[in-house]
């Protein structure tokens, strides 16, 4: 997987230039095609939903062109989610129709990127403002709490080469 922190719009070109691997071997595809994007602190102030949506549209178009260039006419799927824990926008491309995405949690699929990107912007802007505000407890409690079922929002787009 590719990890990057974006500090200005020009750096998005690094992602466009990324090579695609569509071998059918999922672990290989994730290793090569997946991107984890963090947004730099100063960049967050300038970011807007429109600009990010625009980037994603361009990215998808770019990937379709890449598929065309290698004459890849099978099914491939682009999917994108906001990783709240890592505070990253993540996306990946794998072969197949996307009927089963490689996640270990429940998914809520979206046909547009708007919801995901809004969540990202809200979260990063909020996190950038928070300082050190931690509550320490003396008591030791090693019991794991019951974990609530986690539902992840994922934007899915099938890539078709005409």
């Amino acid at each position, binding site marked *: 997987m590719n990890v990057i922190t974006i500090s200005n719009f020009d750096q998005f070109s690094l992602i466009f230039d990324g090579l695609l691997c569509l071998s059918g071997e999922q672990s290989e595809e994730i290793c090569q095609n997946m991107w984890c994007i963090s947004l730099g602190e100063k960049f967050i102030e300038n970011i807007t939903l429109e600009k990010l949506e625009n980037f994603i549209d361009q990215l998808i178009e770019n990937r379709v062109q890449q598929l065309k260039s290698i004459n890849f006419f099978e099914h491939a799927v682009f999917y994108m989610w906001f990783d709240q824990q890592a505070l990253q926008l993540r996306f990946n491309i794998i072969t197949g129709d996307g009927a089963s995405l490689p996640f270990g949690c429940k998914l809520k699929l979206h046909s547009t990127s708007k919801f995901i990107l809004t969540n990202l912007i809200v979260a990063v802007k909020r996190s950038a403002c928070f300082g050190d505000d931690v509550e320490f407890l003396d008591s030791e409690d090693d019991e*794991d709490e019951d974990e609530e079922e986690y539902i992840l929002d994922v934007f899915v787009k099938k890539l078709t080469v005409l």
Partner: protein
Amino acid sequence: MKRLIVLNYLLLIIFNTCISSGKIVETKFLSLPWTSFSYLLDKSHSLQEGFCSDTIIKTSFGYRPISVLVEGDIVIDYEGSKKKVIAVSKQYVNRYIKFVVGNTVICTGYDQLYYTFHSDMWLAAHNIVVGDTLLNDINEPCSVLSVELINEDRLLYYLTVQDHIFCITSYNLCVHNAEALIFGVSSTCLGHITMINPVVATIGATVALSAVAYKAYQSYMHYSSNNDEKISLPTDVILAERFYYIQRSTDLETIRQEFIGVKNGLENLKVFCGTSSTNFTHQFLAHTAPLNICHKNQFLQISAVGEMQLSDNQKENLRLLRENELKRLEQEIIAIQVILAFHVNELIEQICIADNEYKNIKKEIESATTLWNDNRNRMTDVIALQSYKADLLEDYLLNNLDRKVDELKIVARYYSSCMNAMSIKKSTNIIDLLEKINPVIIEYEQQIVKEKKLTTQKMFVSEQYFMHRGISVGHIKNETEIYFQKRRNDRNAQIVAETKNRLESIVVSGSPQNNNNNDDDDCEDFWQKLKTCSDKSARSAKFGRLYRDAVTKLWWSKDLAQHGGSFYKVFKETAKGFEWVYDAAKDGSKILNKNKGPIGSFIPYKEVVFRV
């Protein structure tokens, strides 16, 4: 000190004045040179390798204390290559080497091998001296600043790893793994006796019942597809779990009966029953009962016809009951094995202790004899009594030794005549060691006999002196015997109590376990291990628990999305919050990133509740 008090006390109650006899008395012969039991035993002793529990080992997911490593974990060797841990074993040792390298104290087995930088060879820990340089993974010499031999009991952990070499401490010192284990599975060494899982050693690991059913089904499908026969599943496929369970429980019951038979046989040896108050075997075995035996659930007695009519839910329950029953049988077998192993180990250990006690006191006894000989021309009652007391003490210590050696000899004879002890032979070194120890016992016994003869002569000389002086010493002898008898009984009770505690600690810290890891449990296993190794924990309302690795100081949380084999998120602490560092797989290994620039993503502290 107690001994001196007794001597003085007895001196006081008999004599208040110093009386000179004015008669030349007979010379007493000095004791023979003493060859200790430990020395004789050492000839056939196993190597003492390994490290104390908190020694950190370089693994694929950072530094980990050796005590938390298990079979299948990955350690890093001196070339940075990943090597699988084949076995993790434990051994009680009575001595170990403590040395300091840089700012790290290393407690290591007496025979543990280290690679030395200048001599370019493997050197056992006991041969390492101050100023020696040990090699680490980047060919740097690491100087040894101090070396100390510690004569104390300690539990050491040792690993057997693929290609034999791994790295310890933050200096990544190259060490050689323990000798390849005979059985190739994890063992527990109590000092003299080593044991492995008796079930695995005898009939192999228990297979999950669901796997049995699946395999039977797959085999049948494979067979029927080859023959183009599409018929309904035959009974032996439907009842595959039943057949496996019946066979497995029968096999386990046979092993259990063998172990119980051996234990009962030992406990009921007539020679021990008659002197139950003084021998360790009877006291120990009578006070260490294995696990409570539960009665079988009636549902387990279901007929084949009845089983075929069960609903899916009922079948699931039956599977669970059967698996619990197999587990219970296995645990009972292991519990009895541990008791038997402890018993023999303790018998040998007690001889070593009694032998040391005798060896340590021998100088004082000899000086009392010398004092007698030096004062033959002007013997006083005080000197005579002092010498007589020393003779009585020597007599007691030798009798004590003799009794213990005799007990071990009887136990050795019992095991060698045990016709049905195949599982014990396969899963412990009890029988082999007792066979090996036999000539040692014979040699040692001869030495005791000679020494006892000398002591008897010395006591006779003293008694003759007192007889001529018209002083009765019979009651001194009786009182001394009563005192030592009580001391022996107290000591036995103390040993039984100590051994029971040790036995419980072994069971808690893990008897030789069945190591057929279930992949599905890997994630939870790693998480549990992480919890154990953590020094801090925190809770995030959104993301659940976080634990801080005590060694790397990185924070771990479960990956909620679990995309593409990622099971954990790893963070570092920053002023703002937890900054994401990498994703980690099920076994905790890092999922490699191709960093295209600086990274910096975090969970703000506001969202986290800390627990220290």
